[in-house]
């Protein structure tokens, strides 16, 4: 039973399953800790699903009492946990911020920078329609005429991008500007490789998305 080296695309180097797993685990950690929804890593998820499928087929050929079967099963459960928790975390954010996510995703789709997978986007839109209908049927359609509108802008919930997060720098990043909202004393800081900090999410959001920092 061997892990195959995987060809993710013709021009990328061969990436091992081990690397994909590590990347997926980082993505999961970031998604758990970031206030907003992050760009999806569906390629990693599908790669792992493929690995799981392959492994499960092989395990089923072994006798149930084989120790190796036990070990592999345990590992597969661990990977399934990461995948399920990762996807559920994303669904939670989609549900909570559905109005703003659907709007923003529409714009992002036009420029080809989607954060959601097609399935997730379908889910988001359906969820929004269901929510709107439910509130209309239960309450809004029964209140006095002019108040019946489902006001999207008032109902929308936005993630708090100013919330504070902990991060670890994967590589050195210089010149992060911490805006001073009350005065003019903007501060500029450097993130040395392996250093850890607590600060507001907004100035480092892009660094999370491009992998230069890891939320902890």
């Amino acid at each position, binding site marked *: 039973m061997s892990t195959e080296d995987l060809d993710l695309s013709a021009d990328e180097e061969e990436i091992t399953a081990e690397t994909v797993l590590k990347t997926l685990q980082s993505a999961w950690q970031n998604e758990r800790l970031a206030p907003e929804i992050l760009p999806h890593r569906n390629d990693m998820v599908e790669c792992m699903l493929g690995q799981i499928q392959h492994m499960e087929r092989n395990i089923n050929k072994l006798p149930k009492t084989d120790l190796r079967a036990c070990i*592999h099963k345990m590992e597969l459960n661990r990977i399934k946990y990461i995948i399920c928790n990762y996807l559920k975390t994303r669904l939670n954010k989609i549900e909570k911020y559905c109005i703003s996510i659907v709007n923003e995703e529409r714009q992002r789709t036009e420029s080809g920078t989607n954060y959601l997978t097609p399935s997730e986007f379908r889910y988001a839109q359906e969820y929004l329609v269901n929510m709107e209908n439910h509130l209309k049927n239960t309450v809004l359609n029964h209140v006095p005429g002019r108040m019946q509108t489902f006001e999207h802008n008032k109902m*929308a919930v936005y993630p708090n991008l100013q919330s504070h997060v902990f991060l670890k720098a994967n590589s050195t990043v210089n010149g992060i500007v911490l805006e001073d909202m009350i005065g003019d004393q903007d501060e500029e800081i450097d993130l040395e490789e392996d*250093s850890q900090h607590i600060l507001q999410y907004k100035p480092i959001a892009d660094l999370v998305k491009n992998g230069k920092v890891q939320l902890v």
Partner: protein
Amino acid sequence: MDPYEIEFIGENRIVSIIPNFSYDKIYLICGEFGPFRAGLPMNVPLWLAVMLKQKQKCRLVPPDWMDLDVLENIKEEEKRSRFFTKMPNEHYMVEAKLILGAASEDIPRAAEIKTIIKDIWDIRMSKLRTSMDALMKSGGSYGRLDHLTMMEINSVKPLLPAAMDELYRIKMMTRKSTPATLNTSTFSQSGSSQNI
């Protein structure tokens, strides 16, 4: 995140075991391990080590840092320094909990080791509380905390980041010097996180 999730992450750490059985190499997705030779030490992920130990298929080899002298030095350094010492690894608490929990008989002077690790944790936690206090008093918007492990960082969530968020909100509100006028918009909240 909750502590179980951090424990889960910590379980990926590689530790050393001595199996009592022999097997060829196994090819897991997270890496190759083995071959297993009865009586010979080898490396496996912590989650696998604990599983094998509970099935009585191996002994655990104490990690280098789980030694009284090493730990005494760390403790002294932690007491002496204002800053946080760099711990032997990112998940020392998870390793300690799982190894001492499942295999204390494989660790010499396990009880003393448990005590000294707890002492180190307590010193660091106390330092962390002081740091949090200083951070809030100095305006609380940015801090550097090298060498804190994930479990320790998690122990101050959500308190510390939430407090810093509140402080920021208060600062933002004191920025507005004009009093609110009585109109219908006063009933909708402004601010970056709006709920119905």
